[in-house]
């Protein structure tokens, strides 16, 4: 590293282009794929969702016997008892929520923890463009990856079930497409909630904590704590609205599928808008 060239300053004439929306997206695309944590997190989501789905199908068919006794099972297989063949194969979606949520948080917060955000905003001073480009890249990459994951989980799971002579579901069954597309859409939406929280809190740990609290802890606690006349409030929380959207069989709320979709999209939109407001107002 001691060999330094005498700077050749006069350079080939470069055409001078300005920042555009599509160039900002291209930049975020390069950045997304050139950092290990995002790529590995995404990959783990793509692998874990089909893997757990198929494992649970194997458990149901008796090909694999779980080591733990029936009472001790928490985790992704908790719904194992009552689920339909369709839902058995998608058991890991709730776990995938954590993975894509963390992925989104990383996209939003990591540049703050490293200081990279200042370089990013130097190149693209229009801050909402940065947020929009990050959200577009993350949301669409996660959507495509999760579509692959849930379809592989579904077809793999059904294959295992049917080959063992168990009841299985077909993609043409009523509710199957809704469940699969809904799951992928939910996961993509959660990654955007993660991006928004990352920008809002600028801290990976804080944003992940808030995400877990908001998606997993608060809905459960509110369901227990709120008086029954307030029970409908819980229906409007993101995971509950997403359950309605996905047509989850044990959904007991009051929202229809389209209403659930609308409420869930509303949450994502409000959080991204909040992140945009904070991004514009606060010093980088």
């Amino acid at each position: 590293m001691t060999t330094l060239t005498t700077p050749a300053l006069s350079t080939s004439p470069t055409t001078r282009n300005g920042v555009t929306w599509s160039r900002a997206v291209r930049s975020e695309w390069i950045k997304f794929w050139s950092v290990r944590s995002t790529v590995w997190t995404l990959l783990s989501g793509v692998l874990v969702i089909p893997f757990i789905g198929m494992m649970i199908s194997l458990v149901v068919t008796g090909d694999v016997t779980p080591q733990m006794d029936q009472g001790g099972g928490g985790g992704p297989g908790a719904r194992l008892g009552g689920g339909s063949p369709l839902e058995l194969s998608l058991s890991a979606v709730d776990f995938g929520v954590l993975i894509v949520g963390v992925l989104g948080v990383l996209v939003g917060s990591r540049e703050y923890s490293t200081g990279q955000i200042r370089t990013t905003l130097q190149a693209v001073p229009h801050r909402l463009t940065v947020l929009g480009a990050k959200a577009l890249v993350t949301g669409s990459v996660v959507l495509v990856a999760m579509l692959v994951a849930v379809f592989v989980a579904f077809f793999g799971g059904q294959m295992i079930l049917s080959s063992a002579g168990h009841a299985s579901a077909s993609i043409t069954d009523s509710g199957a497409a809704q469940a699969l597309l809904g799951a992928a859409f939910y996961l993509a939406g959660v990654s955007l909630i993660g991006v928004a929280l990352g920008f809002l809190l600028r801290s990976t740990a804080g944003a992940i904590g808030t995400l877990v609290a908001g998606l997993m802890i608060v809905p459960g606690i509110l369901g227990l704590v709120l008086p029954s006349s307030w029970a409908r409030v819980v229906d409007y929380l993101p995971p509950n609205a997403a359950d309605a959207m996905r047509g989850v069989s044990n959904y007991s709320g009051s929202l229809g599928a389209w209403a659930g979709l609308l409420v869930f999209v509303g949450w994502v939109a409000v959080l991204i808008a909040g992140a945009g407001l904070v991004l514009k107002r606060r010093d980088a």
Partner: protein
Amino acid sequence: MIEVEHLSKHYGSITALDGMNFTVHPGIVTGFLGPNGAGKSTSMRVILGLDAPDSGRATVNGKDYHDLSAPLHEIGALLEAKSVEGSRTARNQLRGIAATHGIGDARVDEVLHMVGLTDVAHHRLRTFSLGMSQRLGIAIALLGDPAVIMLDEPTNGLDPDGIKWIRELLRGLADEGRTVFVSSHLMSEMALTADHLIVVGSGRVLADMSMSDFVSNASAGSVLVRSPQAQELRRIIGADGVTVTSNTATELEVSGRSAASIGELAASAGLVLHELATRSPSLEQAFMELTNSAVVYHGDSGVAHTAASTAKDPS
């Protein structure tokens, strides 16, 4: 051209900028000199539109940073070299930034070559030393071939070869007619590099002058006189433009009159001199004296300078 007009900025109760006001001109290297906490980095962040000032305005080539449609072609800046994501490679770091302006990979490889990082282009940034990171930061600044270059403490972490290289680079950029603005907290560094100096302390400009003016001001110096008859001598040498201070009854510090002149006056009055010495302070001392009154963080071991009356009460 960078114009900074009456910038003020507070972080809570701390005043980071207190009416910062200066212009950086093209074709020369302008040194931005001041102790840590003087407001150098904050000024640069405001210039780049990263921090919003409480009042005042900063422009690059006449425009607010947020109004630049192709900022990388207007101003290339290096703030903190280590502020990168460690698992990304050097080349990908540059490609990601270049993409925002549609700058191609050929230019990316060109700037990597300019800063001598071609061999490590595919290494992850967490393996980079501070010096290598500084060079990558300079590559980022040069990416858009901008008319204005602004570097915050670029020689931090560089070995002597690297420091010499930066000096030549900055000189070359200025000779091409670019605006070169570089901060440092070391006078010795600036003395070799800068044509013009903006000295700051406590968020204000303390001196804004050419390097040669700063040098000649500093080398004017003063004369130390020791005499048992110091007080009589003091009456004789007094004149317009001559200032005499004394710390003890037998010692005078005279500026505005040469040692020869003092010696002749003493001889003609028959006064005894024990010592007559010209003291020309180093540039470092001149800088220290200029900024001392404004330094926020005083070391305890330092000489107990009486803070100038302009120093703000630190609260």
